[in-house]
C-alpha cells in the first residue's frame, strides 16, 4: 500500500508536467533549449530518458486511472476561481469591509413589534408576520469584525454561480437570556440583519441587495449582495449573521429541550402549571447553527489548511453533488471530509481521485439514519440515541450538540448514498470513461425519475397536512412549515410505496430572494409560488405488482396495516395458504400495472388528506395511448406481442416435428421486431375477409373496381436453419432454386402433418398459426458466400457488396440481435414499449423511414445498457426522454456507442472499436453503434442510414421535443403531451396528400378515436392478404425513381401525407450527358441551351405513379 502511494505521487508530478505541456507553456522552453536538433528526433524512436521510461511504465500499469487523473486536472483547472476575479473581489471586499466597520454604535432601543424601527431604517425585516408576536426590545451593538468564511476561504469553491460567504458575529450582549425561546432570537437577528442592510444600501459598489434564505429555510435569512460592475457577473456575496459562542450554553439546545412554547406558537392561553411541552430539536438546531458556526469553521480550517488534495476532493465532490442537484451543501461535504480525516480513512497524501473514491465507498455503506456519526470527542454531550429519536439523519459537529444534517430529509440522504454506490460502480466499470458521467453530465429531473408527483394545489395540501399534524411535530418544526410538510409526505409515500420504489426524493423549487424594501409576505404574493414535488425511482419488478401483502390477520401488526390503508385493506387468502391483510389494485394490462404507483398515491392522499386525484399531477403514463391499439379497443402492444410469441413457440414445435423433409429443421429464429416487443402495432390475428378470393392457400386482392381493400396485415418473419449438408449447389441461382424447393416441401408438410394453411413462394413460406401469419425463410451461410463470390483472373475472390451485407444482416446477424434484444426486454420490461414510443416519435416526425428499425432499437437499448450516470429506467416514458436526450446531446461525429448486451465485449474489444471508429472514412456511418453481434463490419446496422443530414435534423427535432416536454410536464402540467408528436409540415417543398382510407394503420393516428373491434369469425383455413402496403410500395417507387432529386418523408403509422424535400442541387444548371440525362429539361440561359431538372414534370409524375392513392399534390411556396 505504502509503496503504491509512493508511486502514485511520482506519477502525479509527471501528470502535472504533462498538463503544463498541453497548456502550451512548456514546449517553447524546451524547443529553445534543445534547438532544431531535438526537433528532428522528437519522433517515436527517440532515445528515452530515465524519467520518461518511469512515466511510461506507470502509464501502462495505471492506464485507466491515469486517464482519469488527466481529466481531473482539467476539470479542476476549469472550475478554479480566476485570478482576475480574486483580485477584483479583494478590492471590492476592502471597500465593503471598511464601510461595514464604519457603522456607528447605536444606543437607541427599538420595540420590534412596532413599525417605527422599519420606518427608521427604510428597509423591512426579513421575517414573516407570525414571528413578531412577542415583544422584543432591540439595540444595535456594534460588531467587531467581518470575515470571509465557507468554501471561498477554504479554497474549495467552484467558479460557477460562485457565492462568497461573509460572516458577521453578533455580539453576545445583543441577546438577553430569555431570547432563546419563541423566535425572539430570530427576530433580533433579523433586526440586526436589516440594520446592516439599511447601511449597505448607500454603498455605491453594490448593484443589488436582497434578502434570501439559507437552504430555503424560512427561519434563516441572509443578505444577498450583487457587486457592481463585471464582478457582479461572476459572483454574489451572502452576508450571514452568527452569534458569539458564549451567548448561550449549548446544552440549552439539546435535542430533548423545549424552546418553543406551544402557547406562543398556537396562540392559546397557557395553562397554569403545565410542563414546558414537547422537545423542539428542529427549532433548537436553528439557533445552534449560529452558536456553533465559529467552532466548526476553525475546525475545518485546521483540518484543511494547506491540504491541497483534500480541497481538490471537496471540489470534485461538490461538482458531483451539483450535477445531481442533491440538496447537500458544500459545508456538509467539507465536514464529511474532515470526519473521514479524523477517522484516518483518508489523508492528504492520497490523490484527490483516491480520496473521492474512499468517500464514496464510505458513503455507500454508511447508515446515518440509524448509526449517526460525530466529530465530537468526549462523553459529556447528549447520546447518539437521543439524536436519532429526534432527527432522521444524524451527523454531529465538533461541539456534539449540533446536528449538521438537521435539515436533511431522509430522501436526500438515501439519494446521496445511492449515488455514491452508483459512483463506485462506475469507477469500477472499465468499459466506460467513468469521468464523464460522474462529473460532466448534469442529471435533469425528467431523466432521473421514473415517476414524478406534482401538486396542482399545494397550499391546500399544505393546510391539510398542517391541520392533521400532531401537536408535537408542529411545535418542533415551528414556523418552518415546508420542512414539516416535506417530512410528513415523505414518510407517507415511503411507507405506501415500500418495495416499489428504490428512491423517493423531494424536488424543491429554486431559491427565493426578495428586495430588502419588501416584506416576505408581500414578496411571496407576487410571483413566488411555494411548491414541492416528489420523484420516484421505481423497482421495475415490484412496482407493477397489483397486491400489497400485509401481515397475517392474527398478528397485532395487522391492525396497523388496516389503520394505514383504510378500506382498501382486506383479508385475502393466498395460494400458499396464508391468510393476510392485503391491498389489491385494479390493473390488468402491463401498461396499467406500470401505473399502479399512481393509483396508490392517489388513494393514499385522498384517504389521508382528502386531496382529490384531480389536484395531483403524475408524470408517468401520459404516453400509454401511443402503444395502445385504438382500433382494437385499446389493446396494449405487449399483450398482442405476447400472443404472437406464444403462437410462434407453438409453430416452432410443429416445425421441429416435421418429418419426411430431406434435411431436418435444426433451428427457427424470429427476426421481426415483434419478437422483442419492439413493434408498436403487432399483427392481431384477425381476418375480416369472410369471402376471400383465393389461390391455393393464399388470398388474393380483389381487383374489382370498388372492392374494399383488405386491412393491412403484417407478417412475422422467421429464419429457418436446416441441418448440415454438403450438397448445396455452388451456383447462386441453383442454390436459390433448391431453397424454393425446400420452401415448397415445408409448406406441403405443414399442411399435411399439422393441418396448418401454408403457401410457398420462391423466397419464403407463409404459414397461418392461431390466425397469425408467419413468414419462414430458409437460410444458409453458403448463400452469402455465393453472393460475395467473384471471379477475377481465374482466382475466386469474396467481395462484400450491399446485397451480401443485407443478406448477412437478415439471416445471420438479425437472429442474434433479436435474441439479445429479447433478453434485454426480459431484463428491463420497459425496453420494448420504450422502443415503440421512440419509433412512433420518429415516425410522427416523418423521419421513421430514414432510421432503420434496428438502429432505433439499439439507440434505445443504449439507454438501458449504458445508463450511467443513472440506473436503467423502469418506465417507458422515462426511457423515451432519455433516448431523446442521448440522441440530442451526443456529438455523433466524435462519439460512438458500444452496446454490450451480455458482457461479450472486453475492454480491448471496445478500444479496438474506438480505433475503427476514429479511422472510418468520411464519417460513415455517422451514427456509430457497435454491438458484439455486428460481424466483421462494426456498426453494421447504421451502415447506410441514417445519414449525417438525417441525424442532424433528428437531433434538432429531439431538442425541440425535449424543451416542449420539460415545459409541458414540469411547469404547465398539461394533461396531454401528444403535441410533441405532431410534426410541422412547413419547410417541405411538396406535400402529397393520400386517400385516407387506403392508408394502413390510419385508425391508429393520434387524432383517431378509439373503437372496439367488431367480433367476427376468424377464417382459419386461408392465409389472409399480407404485407400489402400501398403507401410503402408508392414510396419505394418514388425513392428508386426520384431518390437522386428529392427526399421523401412519411409517417408509417397512419400518415396521410408524404412530404417531399428537393435536394439542394436540383436547382443547378447542368450540362447534358448521355449517362446523366435523367429528368433534364432544356432552358435557355443567355441564348445558350442549358439543362435543368424538370421539377414540374417530376411533381406531375408523383400524381401519375400514385394513381388511385394520391388525393392531391400541393407545392409549398
Amino acid at each position, binding site marked *: 500500500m505504502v509503496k503504491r502511494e509512493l508511486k502514485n505521487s511520482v506519477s502525479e508530478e509527471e501528470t502535472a508536467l*504533462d498538463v503544463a505541456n*498541453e497548456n502550451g507553456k512548456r514546449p517553447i522552453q524546451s524547443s529553445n533549449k534543445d534547438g532544431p536538433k531535438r526537433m528532428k528526433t522528437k519522433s*517515436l*524512436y527517440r532515445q528515452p530518458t530515465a524519467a520518461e521510461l518511469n512515466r*511510461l511504465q506507470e*502509464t501502462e500499469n495505471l*492506464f485507466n486511472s*491515469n*486517464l482519469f487523473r*488527466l*481529466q481531473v486536472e*482539467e476539470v479542476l*483547472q*476549469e472550475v478554479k476561481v480566476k485570478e482576475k476575479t480574486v483580485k477584483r473581489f479583494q478590492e471590492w471586499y476592502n471597500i465593503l469591509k471598511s464601510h461595514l466597520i464604519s457603522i456607528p454604535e447605536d444606543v437607541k432601543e427599538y420595540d420590534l413589534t412596532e413599525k417605527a424601527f422599519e420606518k427608521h431604517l427604510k428597509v423591512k425585516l426579513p421575517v414573516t408576520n407570525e414571528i413578531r408576536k412577542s415583544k422584543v426590545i432591540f439595540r444595535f451593538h456594534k460588531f467587531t469584525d467581518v470575515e470571509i468564511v465557507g468554501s471561498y476561504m477554504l479554497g474549495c469553491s467552484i467558479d*460557477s*454561480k460562485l457565492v462568497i460567504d461573509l460572516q458577521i458575529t453578533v455580539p453576545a450582549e445583543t441577546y438577553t437570556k430569555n431570547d432563546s425561546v419563541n423566535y425572539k432570537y430570530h427576530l433580533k437577528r433579523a433586526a440586526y440583519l436589516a440594520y446592516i442592510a439599511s447601511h449597505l444600501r448607500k454603498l455605491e459598489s453594490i448593484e443589488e441587495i436582497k434578502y434570501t434564505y439559507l437552504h430555503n429555510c424560512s427561519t434563516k435569512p441572509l443578505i444577498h449582495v450583487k457587486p457592481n460592475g463585471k464582478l457582479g457577473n461572476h459572483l454574489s456575496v451572502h452576508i450571514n449573521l452568527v452569534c458569539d459562542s458564549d451567548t448561550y450554553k449549548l446544552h440549552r439546545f439539546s435535542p430533548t429541550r423545549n424552546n418553543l412554547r406551544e402557547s406562543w406558537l398556537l396562540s392559546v392561553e397557557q395553562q397554569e402549571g403545565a410542563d414546558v411541552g414537547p422537545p423542539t430539536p428542529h427549532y433548537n438546531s436553528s439557533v445552534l447553527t449560529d452558536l456553533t458556526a465559529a467552532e466548526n469553521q476553525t475546525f475545518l480550517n485546521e483540518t484543511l489548511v494547506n491540504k491541497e488534495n483534500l480541497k481538490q476532493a471537496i471540489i470534485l465532490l461538490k461538482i458531483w453533488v*451539483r450535477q445531481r442537484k442533491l440538496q447537500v451543501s458544500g459545508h456538509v461535504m467539507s465536514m464529511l471530509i474532515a470526519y473521514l480525516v479524523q477517522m484516518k480513512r483518508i489523508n492528504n497524501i492520497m490523490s484527490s481521485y483516491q480520496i473521492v473514491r474512499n468517500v464514496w465507498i464510505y458513503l455507500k455503506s454508511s447508515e446515518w439514519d440509524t448509526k449517526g456519526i460525530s466529530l465530537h470527542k468526549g462523553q459529556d454531550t447528549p447520546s447518539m440515541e437521543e439524536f436519532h429519536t429526534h432527527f432522521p439523519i444524524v451527523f454531529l459537529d465538533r461541539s456534539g450538540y449540533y446536528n449538521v444534517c438537521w435539515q436533511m430529509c431522509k430522501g436526500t440522504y438515501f439519494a446521496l448514498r445511492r449515488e455514491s454506490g452508483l459512483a463506485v460502480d462506475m469507477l469500477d466499470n472499465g468499459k466506460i470513461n467513468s469521468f464523464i458521467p460522474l*462529473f*460532466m453530465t448534469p442529471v435533469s429531473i425528467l431523466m432521473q425519475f421514473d415517476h414524478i408527483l406534482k401538486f396542482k394545489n399545494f397550499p391546500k395540501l399544505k393546510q391539510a397536512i398542517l391541520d392533521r399534524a400532531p401537536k408535537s411535530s408542529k411545535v418542533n418544526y415551528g414556523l418552518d412549515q415546508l420542512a414539516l410538510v416535506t417530512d410528513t409526505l415523505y414518510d407517507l409515500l415511503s411507507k405506501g410505496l415500500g418495495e416499489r420504489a428504490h428512491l423517493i426524493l423531494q424536488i424543491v423549487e429554486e431559491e427565493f430572494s426578495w428586495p430588502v424594501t419588501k416584506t416576505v409576505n408581500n414578496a411571496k404574493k407576487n410571483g413566488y409560488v411555494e411548491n414541492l414535488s416528489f420523484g420516484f425511482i421505481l423497482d421495475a419488478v415490484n412496482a407493477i405488482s397489483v397486491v400489497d401483502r400485509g401481515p397475517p390477520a392474527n398478528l397485532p401488526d395487522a391492525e396497523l396495516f388496516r389503520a394505514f390503508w383504510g378500506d382498501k385493506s382486506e383479508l385475502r387468502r393466498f395460494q400458499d395458504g396464508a391468510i393476510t391483510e392485503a391491498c389489491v389494485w385494479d390493473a390488468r394490462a402491463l401498461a396499467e400495472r406500470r401505473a399502479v404507483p399512481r393509483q396508490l398515491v392517489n388513494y393514499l392522499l385522498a384517504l389521508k388528506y382528502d386531496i382529490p386525484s384531480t389536484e395531483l399531477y403524475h408524470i408517468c403514463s401520459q404516453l400509454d395511448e401511443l402503444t395502445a391499439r385504438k382500433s382494437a379497443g385499446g389493446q396494449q402492444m405487449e399483450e398482442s406481442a405476447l400472443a404472437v410469441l406464444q403462437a410462434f413457440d407453438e409453430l416452432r414445435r410443429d416445425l421441429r416435428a416435421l418429418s419426411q423433409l430431406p434435411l431436418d429443421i435444426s433451428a427457427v429464429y424470429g427476426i421481426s421486431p415483434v419478437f422483442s416487443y419492439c413493434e408498436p402495432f403487432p399483427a392481431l390475428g384477425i381476418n375480416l375477409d369472410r369471402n376471400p378470393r383465393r*389461390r*391455393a392457400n*393464399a388470398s388474393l386482392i380483389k*381487383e374489382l373496381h370498388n372492392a374494399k381493400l383488405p386491412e393491412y396485415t403484417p407478417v412475422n418473419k422467421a429464419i429457418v436453419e436446416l441441418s448440415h449438408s454438403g450438397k448445396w449447389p455452388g*451456383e447462386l*441461382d*441453383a442454390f*436459390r*432454386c433448391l431453397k*424454393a424447393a425446400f420452401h*415448397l416441401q415445408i*409448406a*406441403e408438410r405443414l399442411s399435411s402433418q399439422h393441418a396448418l394453411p401454408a*403457401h*410457398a413462394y*420462391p423466397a419464403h413460406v407463409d404459414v397461418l398459426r392461431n390466425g397469425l401469419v408467419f413468414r419462414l425463410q430458409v437460410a444458409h451461410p453458403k448463400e452469402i458466400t455465393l453472393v460475395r463470390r467473384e471471379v477475377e483472373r*481465374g*482466382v475466386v*475472390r*469474396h467481395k462484400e457488396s450491399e446485397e451480401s451485407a443485407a443478406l448477412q444482416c437478415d439471416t445471420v446477424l438479425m437472429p442474434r440481435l433479436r435474441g439479445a434484444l429479447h433478453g434485454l426486454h426480459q431484463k428491463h420490461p420497459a425496453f420494448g414499449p420504450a422502443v415503440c414510443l421512440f419509433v412512433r416519435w420518429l415516425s410522427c416526425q416523418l423521419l421513421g423511414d430514414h432510421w432503420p428499425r434496428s438502429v432505433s432499437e439499439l439507440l434505445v437499448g443504449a439507454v438501458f445498457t449504458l445508463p450511467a450516470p443513472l440506473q436503467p429506467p423502469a418506465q417507458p416514458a422515462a426511457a423515451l426522454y432519455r433516448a431523446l436526450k442521448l440522441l440530442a446531446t451526443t456529438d455523433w461525429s*466524435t462519439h460512438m456507442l458500444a452496446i454490450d448486451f451480455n458482457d461479450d465485449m472486453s475492454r480491448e474489444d471496445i478500444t479496438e472499436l474506438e480505433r475503427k471508429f476514429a479511422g472510418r472514412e468520411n464519417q460513415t456511418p455517422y451514427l456509430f453503434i457497435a454491438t458484439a453481434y455486428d460481424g466483421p463490419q462494426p456498426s453494421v446496422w447504421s451502415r447506410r442510414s441514417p445519414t449525417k443530414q438525417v441525424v442532424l435534423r433528428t437531433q434538432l427535432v429531439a431538442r425541440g421535443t425535449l424543451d416542449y416536454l420539460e415545459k409541458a410536464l414540469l411547469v404547465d402540467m398539461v394533461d396531454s403531451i401528444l403535441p410533441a408528436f405532431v410534426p410541422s409540415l412547413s419547410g417541405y417543398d411538396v406535400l402529397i396528400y393520400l386517400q385516407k382510407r387506403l392508408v394502413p394503420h390510419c385508425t391508429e393516428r393520434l387524432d383517431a378515436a378509439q373503437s372496439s373491434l367488431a367480433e367476427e369469425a376468424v377464417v382459419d383455413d386461408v392465409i389472409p392478404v399480407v404485407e*400489402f402496403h400501398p403507401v410503402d*410500395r*408508392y414510396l419505394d*417507387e418514388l425513392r*428508386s*425513381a426520384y431518390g437522386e432529386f428529392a427526399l421523401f418523408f412519411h409517417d408509417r403509422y397512419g400518415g396521410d401525407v408524404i412530404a417531399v424535400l428537393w435536394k439542394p442541387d436540383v436547382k443547378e444548371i447542368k*450540362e*447534358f450527358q*448521355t*449517362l446523366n*440525362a*435523367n429528368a*433534364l429539361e432544356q432552358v435557355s440561359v443567355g441564348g445558350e441551351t442549358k439543362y435543368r431538372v424538370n421539377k*414540374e*414534370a417530376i*411533381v406531375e409524375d408523383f400524381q401519375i405513379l*400514385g394513381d*388511385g*392513392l*394520391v388525393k392531391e399534390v400541393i407545392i409549398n411556396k
Partner: protein
Amino acid sequence: MKSNKRTHDFRALELKISEQSISPHTIYFKEHSVREHSSDKPSGRTLFIVNVPPYADEKGLKNAFSEAGTVNSVIFATKPNAEIQSEKFTKETCKLSFKVCYLVFKKVSELNKALELTELRPMNSNGHEIIVGMKKWIQEHNAAVELPQVLKERIETFMKTHDNKTQSEQKQEKQLEQQDDEGWITVTKGGKVQSFARTEKVESKIMAKEESKKKRKELKNFYTFQIRETKMKHIVSLRQKFEEDKKKIVQIKQSRRFKPF
C-alpha cells in the same frame, strides 16, 4: 464545347402520358450508332432514347412514335450498352428509375421519319393505358402468389437445365485434360491431376505458410541490434499508448471543454 457537340446529335421532344399532361418530361433521342451492332439493335433502324420516364412501357413508346411508323421491338435498359441478363430462376423486380430505350423500327425510312418528328403522341392512346398506382400494385401482389404446382414445375425445369449445363461443363473440363497439339495439359479441378482450388482463401493460406517458413529460418535476439530493437519497440508501443491517451483528452477537451456546468 465537347458536350455541346454531342448534344447536337440528340433531338429533344416532350413525351406526354396523356393529352391532359401539363408539364411532361423531355426525352432525347438519336440514331443508335455504335461500332458493333448486335442483331437485336440493327444499325440504321434503331432509335436510341435517353431520359425515358420511369413508368413508360413498351406499348406507350410504340404509341408515342406511331406517327413515324411501326415499331418492331422496344428494349429498355437502365444504362446504355448494359448487358442483358440471362434467364434466372428468381425474377428480380426491376426498380423504377429513368431509363434508356432502344426502339427498333421496321424500315430505315421510318427511323428517318422519327428523327424528323416535331411532336410525339401521348403514350396513353390507341386504347392503351399504362398500368400505374393501385392497379399495378394489386396486380403485382396477386401475380406473386403462384400455385404450388406451377412453382414446382418451374423448379423442376430449372434444375433440369442446370444439371444439363453442369454436366456439359464437366465434360468440357474432361476434354481440356487431354493433351493438345503442342502437348500441353490444362489442369482443372475435376481432373486426375491433383491441384488446389484457385480461391483467395487458399492463396492467402499458402502465402502465410511461406511467410512462416521464412520466419522459422530467421534468428531472433542473436545480434545486439536485434535486442536493442525489441526494447525500443516496447517503448514505442508504450509511447503510442500514451499518445493515444493524450489525444483522447484533447478530443474531450474540444467537445466538452471540461465545463461541467
